[in-house]
């Protein structure tokens, strides 16, 4: 009997040698005359265990990790393909049944329900795991009812701004136009985030389905995925999935014989962080410099090529299928306060157990950092965490009990953003991090508004003086004044939020700036 062996094709797994491990396992099986089928699945998101190899058994999949090429022969010697045989002593890399691994078992995977389980580019696999149920339901509903379902689910933009997705859709639905567009913002540039990449590489069909539902809901017939150029594997997976979906009639002029059209195309970004801002993204899609637009008009009314456009993040769109499949209430039952549903949280930086944790809103940072993250990778105390990417605030240990909730984070002058959490141990120099925040803003500024274009460079200069111990008190005041100008005078979040990391570093870690805590 052919034994199924799963080895991820996710780029983080590949970054730990998954390709070589797959080749070694295939070779070893051939050498030993064993009949195996290697399936290149997505990653389960337990990245410290990559390359994680799974073997299908009657009781479920059994996992091994982290597997290196040098471990392959010993895995075969330990008869890892027959892991359920009671007489077989498990290999030292055995993790037992994958579904029983506590880190995974405690999660609430809705958006990520299929990630790591299926072969990402197999439409058959997608359909066998509840794929396209959401679209089939949507096709039975009126446009207004699809939008209402999304609104009632409480889904808010997962890109960072947390604007209610249903409201945005309603605006576009209400516009009369010859052409409307669905644009997926897949320019995931925040450090510490990789959930968009995981969806696109490991379950591209769910994004395609979500965009198709959005198109049907608002009357848009063309969709674009604006994908960052740093994600070549996601490009391959998306294009393969779009081709199979088109061939099978899930995309095209007549989606599932509904008489409705929806076409989808991937467009590559070109390494400009600011293009994650929706209006500069639209400029870029139009073939221009990614310079931020003034709002109004809102993109929902005058977006791509001047037409009504839904611009949503990957995770927002990829969450739509499960909402249309299981209903608004099912999704809204997760979460706390006005933060409904789940958040795919990314544990990154200096953590022992980094990876993807999808949970209902409400879990605290401390639980995430220690129960899931396992503390710092270096074994030193965690001194600071940055939540929400390079424009997110740095939080000290005293704020680790804050629950993940948009409003709770606002209360402590922080943001959840796209759900990335980067941990730093006690060797971090927070004045250096503040300097980097200004430096990054200077490198990535589109140049349209003065506070961002000039302010970021002046910020680097003033922080350098503070680091050099020159007129510290005066220069701290200057940074605060400058930050105030940037916060209130910038056109978009790049200049407008760079003060978050800068001021939070100063407020919570003044000793690093040569000033006393008081």
């Amino acid at each position, binding site marked *: 009997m052919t034994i199924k062996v799963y080895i991820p094709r996710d*780029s*983080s797994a*590949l*970054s*730990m040698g998954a390709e070589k491990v797959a080749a070694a396992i295939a070779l070893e099986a051939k050498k030993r005359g064993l009949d195996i089928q290697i399936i290149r699945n997505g990653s389960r998101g337990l*990245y*410290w265990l*990559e390359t994680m190899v799974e073997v299908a058994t009657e009781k479920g999949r059994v996992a091994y990790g982290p597997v290196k090429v040098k471990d392959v022969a010993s895995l075969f010697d330990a008869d890892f393909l027959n892991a359920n045989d009671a007489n077989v002593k498990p290999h030292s890399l055995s993790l037992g049944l994958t579904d029983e691994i506590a880190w995974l078992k405690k999660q609430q995977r809705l958006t990520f329900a299929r990630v790591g389980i299926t072969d990402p580019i197999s439409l058959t696999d997608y359909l066998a795991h509840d794929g396209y149920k959401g679209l089939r339901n949507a096709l039975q509903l009126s446009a207004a009812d699809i939008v209402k379902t999304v609104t009632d689910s409480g889904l808010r933009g997962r890109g960072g701004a947390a604007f209610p997705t249903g409201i945005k859709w309603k605006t576009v639905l209400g516009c009369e136009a010859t052409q409307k567009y669905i644009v997926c913002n897949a320019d*995931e*540039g*925040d*450090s*510490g*985030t*990789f959930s*968009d*990449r995981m969806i696109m590489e490991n379950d591209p069909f769910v994004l395609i389905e979500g965009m198709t539902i959005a198109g049907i809901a608002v009357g848009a017939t063309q969709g674009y995925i604006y994908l960052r*150029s*740093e*994600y*070549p594997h996601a490009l391959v997976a998306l294009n393969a999935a779009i081709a199979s979906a088109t061939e099978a009639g899930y995309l095209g002029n007549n989606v599932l014989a509904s008489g409705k059209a929806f076409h989808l195309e991937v*467009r*590559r*970004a*070109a*390494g*400009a*962080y600011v293009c994650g801002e929706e209006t500069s993204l639209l400029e*870029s*899609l*139009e*073939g*221009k*410099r*990614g*310079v931020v637009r003034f709002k109004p008009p809102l993109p929902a009314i005058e977006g791509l*090529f001047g037409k009504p456009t839904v611009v949503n993040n990957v995770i927002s769109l990829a969450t739509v299928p499960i909402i249309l499949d299981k209903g608004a209430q099912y999704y809204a039952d997760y979460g706390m306060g006005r933060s409904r549903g789940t958040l795919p949280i*990314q*544990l*990154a*930086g*200096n*953590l022992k157990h*980094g*990876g*993807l944790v999808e949970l209902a809103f409400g879990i605290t940072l401390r639980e995430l950092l220690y129960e899931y993250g396992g503390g710092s*990778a270096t074994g030193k105390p965690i001194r600071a965490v*940055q939540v929400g990417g*390079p424009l997110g605030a740095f939080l000290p240990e005293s704020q680790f009990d804050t629950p993940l909730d948009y409003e709770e984070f606002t209360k402590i002058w922080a943001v959840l953003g796209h759900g*990335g959490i*980067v*941990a*730093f141990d006690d060797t*971090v120099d927070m004045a250096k*991090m503040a300097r*980097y925040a200004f430096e*990054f803003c200077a*490198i*990535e500024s*589109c140049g349209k508004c003065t506070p961002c274009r000039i302010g970021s460079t002046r910020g680097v200069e003033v922080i350098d003086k503070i680091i050099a111990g020159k007129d510290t008190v005066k220069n701290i005041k200057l940074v605060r004044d400058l930050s105030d100008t940037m916060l209130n005078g910038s056109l978009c979040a790049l200049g407008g939020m760079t003060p978050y990391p800068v001021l939070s570093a100063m407020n919570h870690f003044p000793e690093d700036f040569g000033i006393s805590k008081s």
Partner: protein
Amino acid sequence: MQALQTQIDALIVKHQNMPGALLPLLHAIQDNIGYVPESSYTHIAKALSLSVAEVHGVVSFYHHFRTHKPGSHILQICRAESCQSMGSEALEAHAKKCLNVDYHQTTADDAITLLPVYCLGNCALSPAVMLDDEVYGRVSAADLDSLIAEAKV
């Protein structure tokens, strides 16, 4: 040079009717010949009804596009926060020292162009680098040495 322009002209014809054609066209040119030669701007501008200044403006706005031939391999080192938390600064210094180049420069033997990058989406396995289209995680100085050695073969 003539052959290069013929190749670029063919790509222009292939892309010029796409909505928002400029970025896809620039990508196609760079994917095929490794960079976007400034000599191609007039052809691009004419085909897309743009000014040469607009083409130049777009090419120079985006970090991804380059106007000169790079080395045989491109090594990108992530400078973003997550990688910083795991010692990427030391890795950057190491790379610059052993390649004897700064960022945006190519080694004397034309083998490797060194570039900074701001996040590769491999943040759970920081520090990360990318060699051509492949990402590497938890990269130590020794790992980087062997990557460089392999690339130079």
